[in-house]
């Protein structure tokens, strides 16, 4: 496969074929990040389009010496997810996370698999209730497995802030998962 650096240079010169190859290479990463950060497949589709149209627009301003392409792409993805999430909140105060409804069609699954899925669903829904500062940090750390240094760069925060950010995010998650966090409809 063509060297990513070459593709980046070609894309920066306005070569849409190279851009398509970059898209092919990174669309899965962006889309899955967006699914986990927005909790909604349709929003993730929107984010995917937003991210890559932004990337196309920014081909003249991206500086490979300042940030690795993938780090820069993560940053745009996080920002678009946050923008999207805010817009959705304005439109619909309590959006339901369709992507996290894993058990809707699970009537025929073995009981233990349903339990497993329920656990995952509960956890993902708790993640979706975290705020825009904590949710992306968890996805970057525990889905993308990124080191704190990269997370700091993506979130544009000091390295020293990443430690408490992730620690607090896990703490908030534990609170969300505790039985006391049941809302008045008995729903987690």
């Amino acid at each position, binding site marked *: *496969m*063509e060297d990513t650096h070459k593709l980046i240079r070609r894309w920066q010169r*306005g*070569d*849409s*074929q190279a*851009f*398509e*190859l970059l*898209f*092919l*290479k990174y*669309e*899965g990463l962006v*889309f*899955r990040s967006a*699914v*986990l950060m927005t909790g909604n*497949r349709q929003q*993730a*589709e929107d984010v*995917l*389009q937003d991210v*890559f*149209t932004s990337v*196309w627009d920014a081909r003249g301003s991206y500086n490979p010496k300042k940030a690795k392409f993938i780090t820069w792409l993560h940053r745009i993805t996080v920002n678009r997810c946050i923008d999207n999430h805010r817009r959705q909140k304005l439109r619909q105060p309590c959006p339901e996370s369709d*992507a*996290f409804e*894993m058990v809707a*069609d*699970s*009537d*025929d699954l*073995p*009981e*233990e*698999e349903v*339990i*497993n899925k329920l*656990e*995952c669903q509960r*956890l*993902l829904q708790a*993640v979706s209730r975290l705020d825009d500062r904590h949710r992306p940090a*968890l*996805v970057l*750390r*525990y*889905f*993308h*497995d990124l*080191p*704190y240094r990269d997370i700091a760069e993506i979130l544009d925060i000091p390295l020293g802030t990443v*430690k*408490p950010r*992730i*620690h607090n995010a*896990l703490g908030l*998650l*534990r609170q969300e998962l505790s039985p006391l966090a049941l809302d008045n409809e008995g729903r987690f």
Partner: protein
Amino acid sequence: MECKDIHDLLTPYLDGELGEEERQIVEAHLEGCRRCREALATTAGLQQDLRLAFSLEADRYSPSPQAWHGIRQYIANQEPPAATTKKRGLSLFPFRFNWKAGLAGALVVAIVVGLAATVPPLLKHENTVLAKAAAAASAELESYRVSRTTISEFLDKPEIGPTITNREDWEIVLPNSVHAIQDHYYFSTSQGVATIVYDYSFEFYAIGENLYFQAGSRPDKIESLMNGTNIFSSSGGTPTIEYGLGILQFIFELEQLPNETLDGVECLHYSGVPRFGNIPCEIWIGKNDYFIRQVINRYEDDRLIQTFITKYYDFNEDIDIQPPVDSSGSLLSGWETESIESAFFLVPVYDTIADIDENADWSNPDVVLEALAMIGSVTEPYTYYQALPEEGQQAIMDFLKSVMAGSVGEIKITTTIISDGKTTVISDGQTTIIK
């Protein structure tokens, strides 16, 4: 340090983000403090659960094949098209090769092993046996069954167990009816992490234009199974006479072994090493009908041994593949249906072959990438592959070989074992029981 201070350090400690001095302080404290050890276990469990939930959730979805179209439209509206001429492009076709899956470890092994079974055109071959077979090629293959067993052994992951065995059973009535059952486990790769979910099984039918699948299983999983077992896999190609014998010219160091009888059928028996890689294979071909009867591929490196045993049988038996509907034509409970076109986004192969550029520059990686995307997107990938010029076929082989060489060995394994109502997750030697 007091417990509260230590608590604040547990997350970065588990994430491997503490400096040496802090790490030693935490470890010294943990040795003497049961409460902090419990807190550590709780945090580790939550991290593990998050990883599993994220991974399973992310694996459920793929971007819409339409996504690129929207972006391309955006670019087109902004400025005139680039000066480069595009003979034929990915953008003509809605399906895209799944690089994430394609580049990740064992799946690539499966693809490459399988590609060993892909056959170049028979016509060039002058072997006497092949010439004889070509003369006899009028025998029509109408139906057959395939079973494929994959035995995987992760040498550096003894906690997974000695081996993992997966079995798929296929019934095929040509030209366009398939019934398949996959048993036991589902193996997926994401972010360089392989996830093995035991007790994952499903069944589906692809009949004419329609796909029928069990509620709960998803078309994308079926698609990946079909792609994996269609052409890029040893069980993939239709085991016609041409296929059965054409495979031989694809093998170095071809050695004919004494004939063997498989299930009462006398077979020609060959062994050798496919044109690339070091994936020895053995092939059994019916002595009288020249149908391929069995292929065994074995992949081995210092971390993974995989054996693929593919058996073809019941040739031209009366196999009846009917959709899961009752006498009134209504779907049986628990089944769903969708058109294959919408589920898989496959492109009719004959629409695309005419577009193949005989003079394409196969030293250009874009051209190879484009062809691979096409192979992944057409209804009959092998037919497409065969239609490519020889240089193109070789370039694809070389590409897949390089992908395999670059990716295997970096894979991390997370295993989920569901049994007795408990979910056990094993990752890098650490075991967590979720419930």
